[in-house]
């Protein structure tokens, strides 16, 4: 039994590497994009705000798997913007576009929860709008949105398993391949342990961050 586990550990680990790659690249790109979307959504320019709103509706209103399939299979045939992406970049683009929409709504909620008085105090002290956002508003927003961001991030770890539709060997698809080959379900259990370890690490990281921000109360 132990020998068998060691035997399948190698392929499962390389599957986990694919999973982690999709996870980290998505997180690093979708967070800033989400923040920018939220700012556009909150801007006083009606047209820009409306476009951001429509984008968020589209991305949250259709399945991530559909978006991935569209970018991989249908995008090459779209006039003008049509490009053919290899499987990994196609998956990343779909994940980033999708998660940015969810992050945008979290950022928007956080930004809107900051009291008007903070903006006024910053303004009368001479801070520009940019300085006010960077130094006064966003640091407070981060504290408030940590719990929902943590939620979304943990969901992302598990959503990465959707890339199997593009025939990429992530952790879950690798496990399933071994299950079908060897007629045993134990690779599923090992995969479950892998996911649990990843989400445990994230949980601890976010708890630490929340603790760090707990030095002050609003």
């Amino acid at each position, binding site marked *: 039994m132990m020998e068998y586990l060691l035997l399948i550990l190698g392929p499962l680990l390389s599957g986990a590497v694919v999973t982690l790659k999709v996870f980290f690249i998505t997180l690093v790109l979708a967070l800033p994009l989400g923040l920018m979307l939220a700012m556009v959504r909150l801007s006083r320019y009606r047209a820009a705000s409306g476009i951001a709103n429509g984008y968020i509706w589209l991305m949250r209103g259709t399945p991530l798997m559909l978006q991935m399939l569209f970018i991989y299979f249908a995008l090459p045939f779209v006039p003008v913007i049509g490009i053919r992406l290899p499987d990994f970049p196609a998956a990343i683009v779909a994940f980033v576009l999708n998660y940015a929409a969810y992050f945008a709504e979290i950022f928007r909620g956080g930004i809107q929860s900051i*009291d008007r*008085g*903070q903006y*006024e*105090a*910053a*303004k*009368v*002290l*001479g*801070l*520009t709008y940019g*300085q006010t956002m960077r*130094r*006064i508003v966003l*640091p*407070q927003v981060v*504290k408030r949105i940590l719990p929902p961001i943590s939620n979304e991030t943990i969901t992302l770890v598990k959503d990465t398993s959707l890339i199997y539709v593009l025939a990429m060997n992530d952790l879950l698809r690798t496990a399933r391949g071994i299950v079908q080959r060897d007629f045993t379900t134990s690779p599923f259990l090992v995969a479950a342990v892998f996911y649990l370890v990843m989400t445990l690490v994230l949980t601890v990281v976010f708890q630490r961050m929340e603790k760090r921000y707990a*030095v*002050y*109360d*609003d």
Partner: protein
Amino acid sequence: MPFTMTDQLMITARDIRKRFGTLEVLKGISLEVKKGDVIAIIGPSGSGKSTFLRCLNHLETIDGGNIEIEGETLVSTEASGACRYAPDATVQRICRKMGMVFQQFNLFPHLTVMQNLIEAPVVVKGMNRDAIIPKAEALLRKVGLLEKRDSYPSRLSGGQKQRVAIARALAMEPDILLFDEPTSALDPELTGEVLRTIRQLAEERMTMLVVTHEMAFAREVSTQTVFMDDGEIVEARPPAELFAHPEQQRTRAFLEHML
């Protein structure tokens, strides 16, 4: 007022008009503030006191009238009725001459007391941290809160928060301080410490406009008390006269109600 005072005009507001939708909240306010003046603005809630103050430093935009700060035009109104503000950069520079203290303190909760004080001098004026910290310490000592320098605002009482807010405004070295009901959010036993700090500034000849409900404070500290009602200045006189012999019926009614 003593003869030694210079007559330098700090604020000239002429015929300020302001509407919120169809509601006219300021119906032509005119006021001159000279260097060293302490103007107390009193009046019933909703009379436009706070709005007037917020128009002076561009937290609200006006619909008519002129405002000059230390001889520089912030906003003027043409004969046609068009209200024209100075260019953004000029507005910012002019408004930086005025500090403001809010009813709700509006300290930055994620920064310590010391960080609250040095934030604007460092970010806006580009001052060196090491250069500003001794000055900030002196200001905290002045408001009696040096030992709280590393505390976060949530650990302070309301009165302490407001004194930090005053120190934070002073750290930018304004020529004029605007106070928007600085004690209205405080428990009665905490108003004294804040009023003492403002009184101390008055003794140092700081030019101040104070919107307040504290009648005793207005009477004792202000050089001029302005009574506002329904978007207008009803009476503006030295407090000794205004409180003892109000000329207008509306002023009398208000003072009888308050005292």
